[in-house]
């Protein structure tokens, strides 16, 4: 299975749509354990990314993702801006000059993105952040790759893992980010960043499955 630049653009478009759709939900989750701006932050950022797309649609995949990341850094602010921004920039650097992606490229890019998030935010799994949603999905893809399992199939299982990871943040006590100020009162709420990461994973699956039909 080969993924085209057109599909990467499509991925970004779907993320932007999902974020807008779930803007209020994300903000409400953030109101419970944060400061009620996560939905607005990401919506502002991906709206800016959408506006940039025409100028980069004909570029290589690395440039497309790097530009998206830089745009997020420049427009989102808060914690999620540098984190998602770094993630997309690192993915872009890992895919410099590519016009098409192999399955292995996708996994490598996702790993680079996660490393970027962990380096920038200095958080580990289990601290009630986006990492708890993203990491389990990557685990599934890497295992599948190692066992030579079908990628499309693995992607669907990865999305389930991301969903479980997102839900696993509910009983956690936050030790990073704004939610950590609440101490024990952060327990019992789903992390907004983990939730936005799940919607991005959904978008990724959809874009990849959409294949060339999106053209």
């Amino acid at each position: 299975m080969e993924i085209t630049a057109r599909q990467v653009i499509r991925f970004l478009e779907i993320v932007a749509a999902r974020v807008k759709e779930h803007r209020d939900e994300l903000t409400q989750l953030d109101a419970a354990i944060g400061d009620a701006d996560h939905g607005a932050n990401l919506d502002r950022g991906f709206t800016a990314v959408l506006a940039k797309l025409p100028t980069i649609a004909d570029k290589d995949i690395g440039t497309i993702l790097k530009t998206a990341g830089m745009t997020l850094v420049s427009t989102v602010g808060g914690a999620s801006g540098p984190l998602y921004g770094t993630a997309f920039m690192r993915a872009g650097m890992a895919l410099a000059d590519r016009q098409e992606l192999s399955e292995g490229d996708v996994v490598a890019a996702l790993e680079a993105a996660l490393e970027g998030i962990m380096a920038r935010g200095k958080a580990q799994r289990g601290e009630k952040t986006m990492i708890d949603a993203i990491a389990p999905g990557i685990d599934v893809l890497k295992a599948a790759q190692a066992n030579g399992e079908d990628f499309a199939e693995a992607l669907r299982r990865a999305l389930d893992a991301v969903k479980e990871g997102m839900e696993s943040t509910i009983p956690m006590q936050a030790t990073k980010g704004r939610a950590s100020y609440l101490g024990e009162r952060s327990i019992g709420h789903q992390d907004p960043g983990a939730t936005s990461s799940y919607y991005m994973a959904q978008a990724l699956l959809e874009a990849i499955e959409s294949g060339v039909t999106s053209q």
Partner: protein
Amino acid sequence: MKKLINSPEHVVRDALEGMAAAHPDLIKVYYDPDYIVRADAPIHGKVGIVSGGGSGHEPMHGGFVGKGMLDAACPGAVFTSPVPDQMLAATKAVDGGKGVLHIVKNYTGDIMNFEMAAELAQSEGIEVASVVTNDDVAVQDSLYTAGRRGVGVTVLLEKIVGAAADGGANLQECVRIAEKVNGQGRSMGMALTSCTVPHVGKPTFDLGEDEMEIGIGIHGEPGRRRMKVQSAAEITELLATPILQDLPFKSGDNVLAFVNGMGGTPLIELYIVYNELAKLLKDQGITISRNLVGSYITSLEMAGCSITLLRMDDELTTLWDAPVRTPGMRWGM
């Protein structure tokens, strides 16, 4: 939601234009990226002092740009840290060749965005140092968490370090003084009502008609404890006791006592709290050598207050007393 605004999207821009219109003698405002610099920046041979953070805390930080305090401030969206582009542009605009100090409140977003901006500024050859304020004793601290929030001490630190830089202190000196202020200051806040983030349109948390929230931050984050509303004397004790124990402040100490309003609390109530605080400190043998009473670091229209105590010495007192002229804080000129 009832606010004097045109639309949630335009709150920050409209307020910035209002500040620019009201204070052309003190500040210049730039847009996209948004930042505020003192009208006469850059001051050659002076360390540039830059701060910033989400909007909704006015007069902090933009209201503290001017002579003897900040050289620049970067306002983010409401309650959202600004982006590196803003800090980078501000840092360049105030660089007087002696380096630039970033004053950062300890929030993950602020830390990371200022960090990226510092990396970019340094790559352009500007010497940048950063100090992080984390004075909120309501947050349990630990090596493994995001640590404490930066709140009231930030206001005092910006005044004091601003005076030091104006007095010719070099970057290292500014860092030393800033770390001393942060090290000797502690704060805690409470809310009688929630605030409403404009683009959300409803209160961030709900408080009953007889409830208050103790240990809140400045972003409508819920606090550590919810309880029935109590008297000003009891509330003052609930805030002051953890502050006093944390540093700890001791009998014989001289302090700057700062009673701050959260945005929706009138001055008459702040003076009532100050009166209780003065009595409480007197009983503990602590002398208030300087004070500040008013709404300087706010949380939109939240009703409530915070108390900040800063242990003073001759150096800090001299810098605090130095003339300052900004939209939000002014004396001596």
